[in-house]
């Protein structure tokens, strides 16, 4: 059987979902037999490739780089999975939204609350530009599957990936659909 071309990406999140992914421990060895990890923070590939079978998207869409990447992912991926609460709901990443638009958030964080060299960081072409509002992934592109949890426990990730790499649609029990 052909290997599944899998990608994982890390948008506006803390990488906790990826840490939980690594917590699948020895099953990763089995998984590695079934997939080609074509793009991920865990591998050194710069460009998101064409023709990806499944992509786990961690994190919310918080800046222009996230937005650009997630659109490219949708165009080049068969199955997009919102991976963890930030991707599914915005979660902690979206806690800045009630503060107002990007400039208000930057002012609050870097000017009003700063007592050491207050200045809004600006490095065009290096620092991505914050979007005015953090959005969950499905608010920006169509999403095929939602994997809840902050982070999703390793067993829950496995319960989704194991059927998927065997060509079966994963049916998580309700109890595994818990946020937080």
């Amino acid at each position, binding site marked *: 059987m052909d290997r599944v071309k899998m990608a994982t990406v890390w948008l506006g999140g803390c990488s906790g979902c990826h840490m939980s992914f690594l917590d699948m421990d020895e099953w990763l060895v089995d998984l590695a037999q079934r997939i080609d990890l074509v793009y991920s923070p865990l591998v050194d590939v710069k460009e998101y490739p064409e023709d990806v079978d499944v992509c786990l998207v961690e994190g919310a869409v918080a800046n222009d780089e996230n937005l650009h990447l997630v659109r490219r992912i949708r165009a080049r991926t068969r199955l997009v999975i*919102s991976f963890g*609460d930030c991707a*599914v*709901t*915005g*979660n*902690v990443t*979206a*806690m800045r*939204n*009630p*503060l107002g638009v990007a400039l208000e958030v930057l002012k609050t964080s870097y000017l009003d609350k700063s007592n050491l060299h207050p200045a809004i960081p600006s490095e065009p072409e290096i620092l991505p530009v914050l979007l005015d*509002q953090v959005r*969950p992934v*499905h*608010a920006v592109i169509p*999403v095929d599957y*939602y994997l*809840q949890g*902050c982070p999703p426990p390793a067993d829950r990730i496995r319960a989704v990936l194991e059927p998927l790499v065997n060509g079966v649609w994963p049916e998580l029990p*309700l*109890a595994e*659909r*818990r*946020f*937080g």
Partner: protein
Amino acid sequence: MNSITLTIDGKLISAPGDQTILEAARENDIHIPTLCNLEGISAVGACRVCLVEVSGSNRLAPSCLTKVAEGMQVQTATDRLREYRKMIVELLFAERNHICSVCVANGNCELQDLAVTVGMDHVRYEYQYPSCSVDVTHKEFGVDHNRCILCTRCVRVCDEVEGAHTWDVSGRGMQSRVITDLNQPWGTATSCTSCGKCVQACPTGALFRQGSTVAEMKKDRELLDFLMTAREKKQWIG
């Protein structure tokens, strides 16, 4: 009270005529999800989670407020109801800033549990991200409006059980907030007896004991059960 007969989900049952559909269903082990409902205080039908279909009527009826009637045919779990319940829960999540992962009630929250029950895997509606305050002026308790669903359990338990009526609701629509006394900081609300019943009645992490951090605020419903039993049945043994 006369006993009447009705069917709930096709099951023929008899119930006292002054019972609500919800009470009759519970006595017959038929589970209807609820959120604003709390045994021992009045029902208000605020959350609409307990809506049921009554044959002969196109309108959905809140089972916590609708009395049983002779020959009534009730459905509690049709596809339409399941879809509406899911929508209601999604709208509750979209209306305020509910962030389970950093909430004091994570793992002990009726809203979080309900999302699991109704199978909410994501929220289809635009999150509103309202600006909400946190009031920790009370010496023991705090209120975080980000997590409030306006179920008014706090208002009812304070008025009907404690008899203080410290809590009420101000504003309309998106501007609605639970308030203490004359919309003043909780710590300055002189009618508050600091009994804490509101905190125990609150289904989410909106009302909490100060000093509790993520997932530490477990609500003690048994305390309320004990008080209600004591009041209504004059029994002081919990």
